[in-house]
């Protein structure tokens, strides 16, 4: 490969006006988009802001939109991108820009605090430990792989286009709920809050989140749909509703 054109989003502070700026840098064998961005930063744009850490797809810091697709920059190889036009790199669009490629994802951290924390059943053995089958561990492993890159949040139209941040927690936190609800030791119940406070009903399972997940978590089919089913059977099952009327229970 050789000199490659880039169009990178530059924006000076949250209120500043943003725009694309063109750069050219030499791309060599095996490079990923993050390498190219760093090279541009070192050569011609010392103050280009980019968030990153592990550079191995494990920390989920370098989320951005590459040629319009939500991606981890460290896991996007240059050789997989078309060479006949400039490579466009811009910040995640569902969150406010702080500067250049860095956006304010603090909303996600606030959302997480509101979700019912883990609480285990009493220990199974006298020494205070639990007995868990490997298959029960494996069932939730998929959800626990999440690296919190927030690419699923970026692509979810309920957040990106409809801005329902107050009523809807987004795919990341349905995965988080699923990890807790299906945890073999957990005893809490999160169905009422999923329905009322977290807006699971807004998701109309277009599976955009699943497509962009760099950890290949089957977000829609394995996390959101089962949670929706649980919510439905908890709150819309006629027998359960009847039972609630007589028992005076008001879990909803």
């Amino acid at each position, binding site marked *: 490969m050789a000199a490659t054109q880039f169009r990178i989003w530059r924006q000076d502070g949250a209120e500043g006006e943003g725009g694309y700026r063109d750069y050219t840098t030499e791309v060599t064998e095996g490079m990923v988009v993050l390498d190219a961005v760093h090279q541009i930063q070192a050569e011609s744009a*010392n103050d280009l802001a980019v968030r990153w850490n592990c550079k191995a797809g494990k920390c989920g810091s370098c989320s951005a939109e590459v040629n319009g697709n939500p991606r981890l920059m460290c896991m996007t190889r240059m050789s997989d991108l078309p060479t006949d036009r400039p490579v466009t790199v811009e910040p995640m669009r569902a969150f406010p820009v702080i500067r250049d490629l860095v956006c304010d994802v603090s909303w996600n951290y606030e959302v997480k605090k509101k979700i019912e924390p883990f609480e285990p059943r009493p220990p199974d053995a006298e020494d205070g430990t639990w*007995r*868990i089958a490997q298959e029960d561990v494996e069932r939730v492993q998929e959800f626990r792989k999440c690296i919190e890159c927030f690419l699923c949040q970026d692509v979810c139209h309920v957040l990106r286009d409809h801005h329902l941040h107050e009523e809807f927690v987004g795919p990341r936190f349905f995965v988080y709920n699923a990890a807790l609800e299906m945890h073999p030791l957990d005893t809490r119940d999160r169905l009422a809050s999923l329905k009322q406070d977290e807006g699971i009903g807004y998701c109309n399972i277009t599976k955009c989140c699943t497509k962009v997940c760099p950890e290949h978590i089957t977000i829609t089919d394995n996390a959101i749909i089962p949670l929706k089913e649980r919510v439905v059977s908890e709150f819309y099952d006629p027998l359960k509703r009847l039972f609630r009327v007589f028992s005076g229970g008001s879990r909803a």
Partner: protein
Amino acid sequence: MDQTPYEYDVLVVGAGGAGLRAAIEASAAGASCGVICKSLLGKAHTVMAEGGMAAAIGNVDERDDWKVHVTDTLRGGQYLSNPKMAEIHAREAPERALELEAWGALFDRTKDGRILQRNFGGHRYPRLAHVGDRTGLEMIRTLQDHGIHRGIDFHMEYTVFRLLLDDGRVAGALAYDRERGRFRVYRAKAVVLATGGIGRAFKITSNSWEYTGDGHTLAYDAGADLIDMEFVQFHPTGMVWPPSVRGILVTEGVRGEGGILLNSDGERFMFDDIPPLYKDQTADSAEEGWRYVVGDRDARRPPELLTRDHVARCIVDQIKAGKGSPHGGVYLDIAWIKEKISNSEEHIRKKLPSMYHQFKELAGLDITKERMEVGPTTHYVMGGVRVDAESQMSTVPGLYAAGECAAGLHGANRLGGNSLSDLLVFGKRAGEYAAAFAREQGDIRLDQAAVEAGMKEALEPLEREGGEGPYQIQHELQDLMQEKVGIVRIESELEEAIEEIGRLSDRAKAVSAPGNREYNPGWHTALDLHPLLVVSEAVARAGLLRRESRGAQFRDDYPQKDERFGKVIIRAARGADGEMVVEEIPVEPMSDELTRLVEEMG
């Protein structure tokens, strides 16, 4: 600029495993607690830990207990560890692992449903609690999610660049916010440093940009002692190709699951050089090595699971002898196990999912079918802030350190898996003792002049015009450390390195970082130069003083161990004129009980 200080009983700097565990403990003890981290919460280096957490729970082999663990740790550290720390670590690690489970962590299981443990280099029995090869993620997420419900304040994307003192006692810290470039003043009765390592001082490293020796330098600047700085762990297996991923870690778990090292002639060279200290514990044949991997309790470890310092040097020797792979490494082969088990591809993907993923996506290579190319990468520093074994307090009152930025547990070489347990055991202790210190000690006074001076100094690179850029100095330092203070060291090169670090330090004082204060990486790099240069100087000076080869330090001019140096560790501290002073001090004495244990277990 808002200068109203944040006030805490305990301020924790760093939000990896040690920092989070310290904060949880301090807050449980009733202390008000704030945590400052350079990145977003949950992104710290702990997330990268793959293999597992060493804790002698004895679920897989009931012969294991804390006594075996402590002797393994001391042997691995070539008897330079603080024996009391090694003992506390071995005794308390099981409880810390089980507590993590009570907070929601899910480890892989044995057939009867208990925590499964895996083999790792230098550990006599299967000892590492793990979740596939992403144990660090499980650990940091568990601590993070547990921590956010405990009233701890998190200050994300802040960097601490100065500690504040009140008459020799710690009184707080000065930080800047990476996102917007504002200064923040923190007033705290106790400070816990949990900032991790120094890997960015080297060119080839598995560490991210954060690992610039901040905690080491904050402590050093405040007058604390550093020890063991000559001992930098070069992990034997980092990726070597493609160039942009050079240094990224390939977990020791690959070898734990049966991976073997081969040179370009296809020879399994690790059988050729087995150190006397490990002769009795190492397999004689490939056949015995495989039996160990699949759990035969009478078999001994394959030589690929010797300690990291040794394996790294054997790899360097192969490369120097012209038997390296095309891109300057050697081969690591896990695909070969297809000769032994029928569903090997599925087995590898299940046991090493993130390694499979990493090679597939970054190198276009399928580890279930092909050999990997690997070579040593800067991974960990055994050296750090000298602390009291029980409390983790440094030589500065109220200043604590835990995890990688503290020293004492690992001596001359750390065993894989002993880091995650270190973070939890000593993170907890630091939090507990810091909270008690804050409770018992009187109030502190903020030195306003020091605050003003610190901020003024930090702004200099932004305001200075026409100076050199910071990246050039950073790259020159990384090249220098890689070349002259790396795996193989020699007196003349160490001396040259120390001189060159002096010249780079002068240049660093005159850098310019144009742009404004919001998320300005040039400015951040300019401020990172001071800690990088301090830790680099400490590594080079300590390495020069230790005229022997032991653990992670290999001196070409003194290739043997020297009994005299087996009795001392090296301390680095700021001298009266501001220059760095290094000197030998005696190794902490071993209790009679431990001495007996070491003799019994060999």
